[in-house]
């Protein structure tokens, strides 16, 4: 299973006017792994997610998920075939409760009936430590809880591939460790994860492989330990001159 490829990206390109945000990026995501994505601000990481989730249209290249091409498919369809995502800046539905936020994802993205969704969503709320706030308005949640809600909602859509966009930012050490444990548990349930994160130690604790972007181009990919030692990565990302 570890060898089969879940997501295949070939020569992805995206430009906003003259600004080329993603340039010829190719990568594979293997089923069951955690792929970490590193890169300085503006490197095109979130844009890459938007291309995979369908929030943005690709200018060129090919995206194959689970054997089918994603090009031209709207984001709601991509969610239904198994691509779940979180947003770096949380986007809760503030007019409903935390629990109802998950119901949207479970009954539309996850394709469950509403009744089937109830206990499924309650379980996810428990895993993400939000069960006490299930009936609270999502608009009243703190930033930490909004980040948890992003993750919980993405899980509720029953994804095969989970795209996490900087969900550890702003957490205390303890909260970070709890998050790492939770992400390991998600992976152990067979969900493949691609995780963009600046909190390096959290990423290193879970990632099986890492990829580094800079100015829209892939500059390194491989085992986390090797990638971190890469001279180019150290120069670009950590500001350490070789």
């Amino acid at each position, binding site marked *: 299973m570890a060898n089969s490829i879940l997501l295949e990206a070939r020569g992805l390109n995206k430009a906003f006017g003259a600004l080329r945000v993603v340039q010829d990026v190719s990568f594979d995501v293997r089923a069951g792994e955690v792929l970490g994505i590193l890169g300085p601000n503006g490197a095109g990481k979130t844009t890459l997610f938007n291309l995979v989730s369908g*929030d943005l249209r690709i200018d060129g290249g090919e995206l194959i998920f689970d054997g089918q091409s994603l090009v031209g498919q709207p984001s*709601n369809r991509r*969610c239904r075939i198994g691509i779940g995502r979180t947003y770096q800046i949380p986007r809760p539905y503030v007019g*409903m409760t935390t629990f109802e936020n998950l119901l*949207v994802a479970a009954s*539309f993205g996850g394709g469950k009936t509403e009744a089937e969704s109830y206990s499924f969503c*309650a379980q996810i709320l428990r*895993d993400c430590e939000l069960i006490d706030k299930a009936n609270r308005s999502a608009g009243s949640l703190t930033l930490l809880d909004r980040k948890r809600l992003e993750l919980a909602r993405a899980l509720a*859509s*029953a994804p095969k591939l989970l795209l996490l966009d900087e969900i550890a930012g702003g957490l205390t050490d303890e909260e970070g460790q709890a998050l790492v444990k939770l992400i390991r548990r998600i992976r152990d349930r067979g969900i493949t994860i691609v995780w963009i994160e600046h909190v390096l130690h959290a990423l290193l604790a879970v990632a099986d492989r890492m990829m580094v972007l800079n100015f829209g181009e892939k500059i390194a990919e491989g085992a986390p330990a090797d990638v971190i030692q890469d001279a180019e990565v150290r120069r670009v990302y950590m500001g350490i001159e070789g």
Partner: protein
Amino acid sequence: MTDASAVSAADLFDPPAVRVQRRTASSIVAAVVSLAALGGIASMPLWATQGQIRDVVELCCYIAVAQMWNLLAGYAGIVSVGQQAFVGVAAYALFIMAQLWGLNPFVAVVLAMIAPVLLAIPTYGLLHRLDGPYFAIGTWVIAEVMRLATSVFGYVNAGAGMSLRVMASYSATERAVGVSILCALMLLVTVGGSYWLLRSRYGLALIALRDNPVAAASQGVAVGRLRFLIWVAAAAGTGLAGAIYFMAQLRITPPSAYDPNWANIAIFIVMVGGLGSLEGVIIGALIYFFADRWFGEYGATYLVVLGLLTLFMALFARGGIWGLICRRVDAPWFPTRRILVEDKR
């Protein structure tokens, strides 16, 4: 309810025993009151005068038109100032079918809903690429085009308008019975139908769509299709109200049928009553109805006051009067919430 564990990764864990509570004491009272009100409206010929029936018909039409606008603006995130296009086209469809084609007018009222649907489908194709204010302006333009086109359309007697003379073949009582039952049905379809929709899982999708369309799409909601369906449904509901209103009026002209005041009234009712709530629409419609009765004689001054009130609510009380009430008492008449209750084991 617990079989979700069988299809998901959650089966590594004990599925929690949960249930979802939806009814409240206030909603049971409201349901009884609503049914009684519907019964009262349907049986008006037994207890009301002709004048009272005319008033109630008018009020019911306001509620229906406003609720359809509420569905658009309060849920689908679509602001239209051209709802009179659907009022007018449905009303004219009724006059054509009943007066020119000789159909039974009480059947024609219902069939008239087809006309706004036929208008809504291509107009959405034209408008849906426009954002916010541009969309709103587009709807107004379409309503004006419909008014102008009707004014030069000889088949419907152009600018001179038409009379529904076929109604003379029914006695006053028969007309009152027909219109009363149609009114009750209209409320059942527009308000009751909205409530049914909002309680279903599509209600969740609509609130998600209103709060964050990008996130809603990434969670599997077909945002574009849902907006389209709401647009068409709102056109049908608005058209039904228009057909019933002009059936009671017995006379139609292009300026009255495509009167921009229909959109103004809907906006006033929803903004003052409470955007995104069924309760607000009923409260707002009652306020508008009585304000119009009591202060309408003051003409321009009265309209300025209504405008200022709408502005005031938009600036200082976004949730309208119903929003202010909700802050004090938690007793929704039409609750759509899903309260998660964990059963202790």
